[in-house]
């Protein structure tokens, strides 16, 4: 024991003063960086912790200033599931997010492929238009779109106005996929051509398997865009609670249960949890997506 403790002292004794100073500076820097790291980790984590703890409090305790539940009311989660409509909202969200994601990938991939690998006049112009659409707030065209879906097609109060447009390519997904497809070497495509593959066959047999990570990133982002969407359901589904999605319905927990913060927070946890769970299974795709669209091609 003493031997182990002595050894560093021995080493320090042998080091020159300059080395010792450098070593001390490195140690101080290590401590400073890691304290900052822990402080930041608290800032990023504590909101989740407080929300979770409150979701397990009794009704009356949730209105107090306590931070830790006296009794752990797991039944709160049951109450949320028993809320009329909750399962319908869950199903609507899955339909909107799931169907929307499939349609987005199917319709965006060929567009992204053409923008990444075909040479044609107007390619840069098309790309710029795609990027501009990516930056466009949905509110810019919402009035005519609403009038079109609600007054002409009589489809307000359903999820169709949210899902159908996704069958026509989504600007962000096209951009992200194109960035990804740029990294596929042209030789593979030439080889496929030499082997007599048509464009569609090349896309399905060569590009698709190689683009899987890019497709995974797009699918995840699109899924969560739909999962998180508030504005779309507010415009098209607000009048009909049977068409609400979870993100839109979340607020109603505050209303239905007045100031029952415990149930509201339990519902909040249930809306956040799937996103976070999926992230743990698909971290790479997420981070890849952020860097691909954020940094460079």
């Amino acid at each position, binding site marked *: 024991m003493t031997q182990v403790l002595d050894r560093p002292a021995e080493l320090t004794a042998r080091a020159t003063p300059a080395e010792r100073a450098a070593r001390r500076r490195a140690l101080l820097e290590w401590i400073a960086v890691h304290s900052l*790291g822990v402080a930041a980790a608290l800032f990023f984590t504590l909101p989740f912790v407080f929300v979770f703890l409150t979701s397990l409090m009794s009704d009356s305790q949730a209105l107090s200033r306590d931070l830790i539940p006296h009794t752990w009311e797991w039944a709160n989660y049951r109450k949320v599931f028993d809320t009329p409509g909750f399962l319908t909202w869950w199903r609507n969200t899955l339909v909107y997010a799931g169907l929307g994601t499939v349609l987005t990938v199917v319709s965006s991939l060929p567009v992204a492929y053409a923008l990444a690998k075909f040479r044609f006049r107007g390619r840069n112009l098309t790309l710029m238009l795609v990027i501009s659409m990516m930056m466009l707030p949905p*509110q810019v065209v919402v*009035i005519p779109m609403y009038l079109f879906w609600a007054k002409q097609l009589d489809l307000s109060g359903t999820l169709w106005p949210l899902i159908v447009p996704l069958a026509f390519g989504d600007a962000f997904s096209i951009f992200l996929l194109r960035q990804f497809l740029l990294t596929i070497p042209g030789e593979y495509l030439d080889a496929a051509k030499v082997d007599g593959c048509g464009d569609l066959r090349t896309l399905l047999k060569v590009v698709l398997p190689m683009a899987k990570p890019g497709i995974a990133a797009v699918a995840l982002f699109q899924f969560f865009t739909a999962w998180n969407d508030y504005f779309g359901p507010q415009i098209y589904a607000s009048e009909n609670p049977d068409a609400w999605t979870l993100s839109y319905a979340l607020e109603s927990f505050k209303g239905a249960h007045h100031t029952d913060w415990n149930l509201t927070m339990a519902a909040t946890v249930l809306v956040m949890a799937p996103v976070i769970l999926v992230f743990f299974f698909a971290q790479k795709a997420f981070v890849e997506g952020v860097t691909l669209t954020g940094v*460079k091609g």
Partner: protein
Amino acid sequence: MATTHTLRAKHRRSALRTLAFLSPWLIGFAVFFAYPMISTVYFSFMHYDGFRPPTWSGTKNWTYVFAHYPFFWPALRNTLWLVVIMVTLRVLFGLGIGMLITKIKTATGVFRTLFYLPYLAPPVAATMAFAFLLNPGTGPVNSLLESVGIPAPGWFNDPDWSKPALTLMFLWGVGDLMVIFMAALLDVPKEQYEAAELDGASAWQRFRFVTLPNISPIIMFAVVTGVIAAMQCYTQPLVAGKVASGVIQGAGTMFEPGYPEHSTLTLPQLVYNLGFQRFDYGSACVVALVLFALSMAFTALLMRRRGGLIQAGD
């Protein structure tokens, strides 16, 4: 002769195939952007309440929005506040966290995941969470502040503190910037740091003359995309205002956005307020066009800086 013929046929075939591959988006662009955009311009000159047929009203909607509608200028001011202050803080904080994560040598993966997770929290859920955390009565944040003797602000219930509260929430979700800054910082050539160190440059000088020039395109990207996102800010201020004001949501509930005292009103919320609450579709279209002009101006800025940001192609 025959060769030109086949060449032309080949060209036509290749144009057709390009068109076929692009068609989903081209149709989408026409139906879901070009047509409604023209309609937005058309409706901005019409009086239309959704029930009686639209009638020509000249520039009435425009003068109404700019001169008489009491919320336009406050909303524009709030949007600019977010664009200037929130975006600046977010970029600085994101850069700081990005630098911190490159320096952390223990359990880096755990730290990175913890820093990134809030970015994934669904906006409505995050807003509900912050409305609870920051509520002046029972919120844990004010409990903590008061227990260490700091006077606790009213956050989403105080017009002076509602935008800082929103900003705090956006700082919490800084994970996307952390990731792109981290990638950029790791890309800075090591030799440049070594050379600077040999020249006796201090830590600040190394940051100023090596790090900053290397990552400036990414900073620019973060600023421009941040500005665009700030201009579109809709869900968070709306939900925060609703929850803080205690409005109960349900079919047909009326909530004047911007609580408290229009301090969280943003331009996109005006489109909703004018169109779907006041049934003044014409004036809503005027605000939509203002929003369009601003977004396109910022997007043009992004494209002009495209060099290192968005690769145009081979």
